């Protein structure tokens, strides 16, 4: 049930994409997002789709996993698409029934929006599927390190992030366990009105918070026992090194981005 949430879940197999430098993968993702939203033509979408499919193929991540990252968004997607369909009144009327009118503009906007969000989800979840959370935060720290000059606590931020990421699966598992334990005592989690349902959450939230605080305290103690004192003078076990593949990847991304901006200017 809760295990279906795939945010930040690493999919541990070996592939070209898995082996790339995480710093580059973050940059690729950012370039991809710019590409996706830079243009307004169909060709932008086609290019982005080709890009995502290529990455998907290289990552060897089963399509089923990507479907999982879209599925929770489906209701929102459908809902906004319907709103767009009914509320946008540009272009010609395509269909009408009593007070409902659907215009050309509405149809194109809905299609663009759905395509963009689906591509965005699939593309960006490839980053988290192919990069372990630890590498991801290392990369974020490396990319943000220029901010250290203005005394921005980059290392502390990255540490907090990796701790948070590290504890997502733990807390999910814990939640699952607490839910099971309370269900075993007959807690009714899926019936009754809103007030009863909120009340029914208490037996889950209270133990969950208690245990989150307990874990936080234990972790802080453990870190202090090991004399943890932040990033100053700290070296790394794993140095991030960019290889040939990373530069090729960067080239490919830039070509796609360039192409996408070009088609936009040419108004194809």
């Amino acid at each position, binding site marked *: 049930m809760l295990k279906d949430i795939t945010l930040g879940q690493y999919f541990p197999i070996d592939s070209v994409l898995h082996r790339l430098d995480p710093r580059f993968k973050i940059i690729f993702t950012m370039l991809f997002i710019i590409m996706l939203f830079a243009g307004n033509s169909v060709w932008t979408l086609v290019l982005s789709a080709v890009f995502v499919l290529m990455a998907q193929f290289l990552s060897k991540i089963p399509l089923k996993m990507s479907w999982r990252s879209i599925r929770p968004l489906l209701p929102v997607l459908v809902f906004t698409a319907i709103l767009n369909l009914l509320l946008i009144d540009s272009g010609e009327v395509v269909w009408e029934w009593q007070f409902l009118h659907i215009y050309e503009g509405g149809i194109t906007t809905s299609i663009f929006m759905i395509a963009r969000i689906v591509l965005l989800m699939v593309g960006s979840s490839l980053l988290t599927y192919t990069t372990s959370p630890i590498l991801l935060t290392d990369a974020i720290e490396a990319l943000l390190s220029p901010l250290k000059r203005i005394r921005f606590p980059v290392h502390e931020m990255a540490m907090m992030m990796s701790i948070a990421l590290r504890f997502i699966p733990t807390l999910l598992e814990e939640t699952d366990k607490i839910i099971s*334990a309370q269900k*075993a005592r007959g807690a*009714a989690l899926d019936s009754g009105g809103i007030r009863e349902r909120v009340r029914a959450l208490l037996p889950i939230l209270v133990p969950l918070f208690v245990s989150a605080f307990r874990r936080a305290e234990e972790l802080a103690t453990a870190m202090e026992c090991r004399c943890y004192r932040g990033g100053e003078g700290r070296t790394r076990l794993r140095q991030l090194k960019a290889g040939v593949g990373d530069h090729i990847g960067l080239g490919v991304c830039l070509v796609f981005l360039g192409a996408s901006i070009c088609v936009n200017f040419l108004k194809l």
Partner: protein
Amino acid sequence: MAILTTEGLTYIYSAGTPFETAAVDHVDLQIGEDLMVGVIGHTGSGKSTLMQHFNGLLQPTEGKVSLEGKDIWADKKMLREVRFRVGLVFQYPEYQLFEETVFQDIAFGPKNMGLSGNEIQRRVLWAADSLGLDRELLGRSPFALSGGQKRRAAIAGVMAMLPKVLILDEPCAGLDPKGRLQMLRQIRDYQKQTKSTVLLVSHSMEDVAEYTEKLLVMDRGRLFCYEDTAAVFRKVEALQEMGLRIPQIASLMLALRQRGCDLPEDIYTVPQAKDALVQLLRKGAVSC
């Protein structure tokens, strides 16, 4: 009559991903009434997963689980009823406490059953007494209790539902030796008093040897056997192969027998061993 029956019960985790594993693999079981059953198996052998099928927390991928002859998944509306009749206490149950007072926490289950106020009161007090929880603790916040008391409060919360089958997953994990002994005795007394079936999941062979009549042995998702405790401990080699062992006192008895001591078989608890050794010494035949 069997109270819990499984037929070809199979459960597959994370189907369709690289993590796919059969946690429970074609298990056929018939567990009787009024019994103390020990559940043993190496870590990851599927004990806990199997237990969660008994009260319908997990739905089998394949196969059937029946309570008193009725398939528990036949009518999903009856699942809640099933959970009242098959009580499950998870490992480290103290982390599920949430109410303002211990009393209210123990009353959570009975209240969900829709019992009357008087009945709830009676059951809470009874469960607290059975586990040796001081009555004055009942008014306190569960978070103010000691670790052992929290554990007792949590177990009392399930016992107060008076289930026909009570499943306890490692109820003694992390308790000190005295607390452990007390807990096991209280569980046995509970079983005797209620004539229910108690399933005790444990890693301690000594505990299951002393307190259970039957043993359910799991090995890598399969049911290795479900037999009388004595019969299971006769399978020394098979147990060792799956990473289990026989109780220490049973190993000692076995070693003595192999050296030629005239000791009976099937001794696996300390009191039994004591009697046998005293008898042997009285006979004066100490040559081993």
